[in-house]
């Protein structure tokens, strides 16, 4: 009698346990993020940080400096236009800001159209490369670009500039 009672209780508990497991319907993830679309547009510089990469690597003091207000950086405008959904033309309008990108206008390309990391700005034979620090998607709507400065003799990374832009 005891065995029957125990077995019945086990079967009852198992029935409740499995009945609780109802299948959950997974929702569609939606369309993939269009990084090109998010990068395009006119951007205004809001923050500029200068980093002594060599000091950072060695753990020295005085590693970085916020230079946003030292010079009128926040006047700098960058416009990235799309052509057929891909990189197209660009213009830079420094105003009274230091020219963080020397080229005034031309074409821009990326190393990977879906997950770009490096943007190459080209004007005639001249080109400049900037590294994307973050995509302006989701919660973050800032475009983050990084410019590296290397010793021409050794190729060693000495200084980097991190720039944050807000969409206009």
């Amino acid at each position, binding site marked *: 009698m005891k065995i029957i009672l125990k077995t019945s209780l086990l079967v009852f508990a198992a029935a409740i346990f499995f009945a609780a497991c109802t299948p959950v319907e997974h929702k569609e993830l939606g369309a993939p993020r269009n990084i090109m679309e998010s990068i395009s547009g006119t951007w205004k510089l809001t923050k500029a940080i200068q980093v002594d990469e*060599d*000091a950072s690597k060695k753990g020295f003091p*005085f590693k970085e400096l916020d230079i946003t207000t030292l010079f009128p950086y926040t006047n700098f405008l960058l416009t990235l236009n799309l052509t057929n959904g891909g990189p197209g033309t660009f213009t830079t309008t420094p105003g009274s800001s230091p020219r963080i990108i020397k080229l005034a206008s031309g074409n821009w390309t990326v190393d990977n159209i879906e997950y770009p990391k490096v943007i190459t700005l080209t004007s005639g034979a001249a080109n400049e490369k900037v590294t994307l620090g973050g995509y302006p998607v989701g919660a973050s709507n800032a475009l983050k670009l990084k410019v590296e400065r290397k010793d021409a003799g050794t190729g060693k990374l000495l200084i980097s500039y991190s720039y944050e832009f807000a969409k206009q």
Partner: protein
Amino acid sequence: MKKLLYFILLVVTGITVKAQNPSFSPATFTAEDEVTLTIDVTGTGMAGAVEAYIWIFSNPDIGGGADGVTNGNWTNSSNAAKMTAAGTNKWSFKFIGTTMFGQSPAQLKSFGFLVKKKDGSSQSPDYKPYFFDPLIFTPTMLRVFPARVGSDDVVTVNFDKTYGVTINEQRMTPVSATVTVFDETGAQVGSPLTINARSTGTSIWSASFIPSVSFTPGAGRRLNKFRYKFNGTVLDPGGVTTTVSSSETEVVFTTMQ
């Protein structure tokens, strides 16, 4: 047609590819590392020489320099300065900074050298400055941020009176910094620039500028180095405000890519 294409390719390659001269192995090194430099002397007074000797010196143009222990006399280089042939017009030499100059890593910032005949009758131009990677951070009264800068960078000069040497440097309240820039011939570029100093710490004052924005070198010249000092005020024994300046220091621009 094919030959013409090859010719164009060769010319374009020759124009666009510029080998680093001198080259170093390893590419970056501290004053305590062994480094091998290799130099191509084609087009210099040492082109075609059958043997070559190095004449090496530390901290060129910034003071506190020393001659290499292997130099010997100008008219009779020591055998220890003899370079190793590394190809047509190419010579290499291996050394350790601290051993070569008899200076500590904190004293050794950079070095330069030239290639010469043993008797000094022919020589190459100076090759300088090449920087040692610092091993330790050494606080100083005058400091530039970042530690190595190009002429297009934002340059911040700093004055920390904690490390002042003279009484005026220890007591002064800085109000400005004066920057003087020179081209590669040593000629002063434009007029000295005086920038307002801002307090950035308990005992630190800073001033920032962008060399290529504030100074324009003459045609065919480039900005090569700058000197800076801080200016401020102290009260003299009579309570009168007096203007004083710190000592001056020199920074050579790094060529950036």
